[in-house]
């Protein structure tokens, strides 16, 4: 271990390094912005990143864990560990406004407010705005899209299909 690496690790430095780790399925957002990183624990030289899964079956989670360790390694923080917690359950409400704007600019409609819906409610009440033209004249094609976290919509105004980051 070099002298340089022996400097005291700060939480800010670790979080800054983690900001380079993007979700492989939504490469415009970092794992910090998505709320996947819940905490950073520092004990001397040992760093533990506490994460929570998004969807139970999200296939990106293992890649994300490997990317976290690799990103810290390249920032000079070796041997970081990743610990998974399940409580509290991940929600899209944790995604900050700035990150939502990034999603929209990337072409994915950001999530609305997650809430309790009647389980047997048919159709959603709220309209999702088209990320390309801003029109609210859109229709839901499928609540299940190319990844677990997205839904498929169609914009009737600009006749473009688009994806929505589902509120959950």
């Amino acid at each position, binding site marked *: 271990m070099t002298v340089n690496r022996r400097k005291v690790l700060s939480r800010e430095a670790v979080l800054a390094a983690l900001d380079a780790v993007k979700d492989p399925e939504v490469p415009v957002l970092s794992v910090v912005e998505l709320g996947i990183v819940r905490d950073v624990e520092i004990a001397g030289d040992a760093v533990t990143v506490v994460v929570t*899964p998004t*969807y*139970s*079956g*999200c*296939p990106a989670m293992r890649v994300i864990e490997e990317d976290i360790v690799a990103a810290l390694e390249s920032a000079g923080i070796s041997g970081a560990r990743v610990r998974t*917690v*399940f*409580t*509290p*359950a*991940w*929600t899209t409400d944790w995604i900050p406004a700035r990150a939502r704007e990034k999603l929209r600019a990337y072409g994915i409609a950001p999530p609305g407010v*997650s809430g309790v*819906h009647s*389980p*047997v*409610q*048919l*159709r959603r009440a709220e309209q999702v705005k088209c990320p390309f033209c801003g029109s609210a004249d859109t229709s839901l*094609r*499928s*609540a*299940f*899209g*190319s990844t*677990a976290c997205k839904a*498929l919509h169609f914009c009737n105004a600009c006749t473009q299909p688009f994806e929505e980051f*589902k509120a*959950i």
Partner: protein
Amino acid sequence: MTSAAPFCEYLLRLGDDRLVLGHRLSEWCGHGPILEEDIALANIALDLVGQANLLLGRAAAVEGKGRDADALAFLRDSREYRNALIVELPRGDFGFTIVRQFLFSTYALHQWEALASCADADLAGIAARAVKETRYHVRHSAEWLVRLGDGTDESHARVQDALDELWRFTGELFLTDELEQGLVRRALAADSSTLEAPWRRDVEEVVRRATLRLPGDVYWQRGGRDGIHTEHLGLMLAEMQVLPRTYPGARW
């Protein structure tokens, strides 16, 4: 049994329901009636297998014998599986798949809601996450059930047949036993018998909107929780488990 054994057994019941149904649903991948639906069914299958992975992982940790979720999924025979019979039946046509998804997802939603406040922090966290996913599953299948039931004569007849066929397998979901009651007293399980009334209320509402008719009294099929399964499970497991059993420890 040690004090951990009943909880491990309970986690196997929860995990096996989702693993087997998730696998059945994954059989639609590439065979869905339309592209969006193919994707939707695969997504729901992914959620279910993901939930199963977490539940079996917790079961393995509680068991404490060095097994992991993969060992429980791929190296147990059908007699050791604890899923309810309804989830192992062949996928049938699209109508049959939708009716089963609706009946099971509605049950799972009430079960997860109860488990979200259980005394095991890991299971409570898994449940809190799964509640949100399961709401999407219920809505998806309920919308389809109304569309098919209140659709053409052909689609109506097919989902009514599926409901009649599947109904006798629903009773098993609400059976409770001494093992479960012992865990309920320790706030580690949802009492299955209390899930039936809210489930039935939801099912009746959607069935009515779908212009379908609930079947009358039937003989309840059971046995899955004790490892007594239909012939279908063994055939399904043979396909699901062939790779890890043929190449033990295979990695890719």
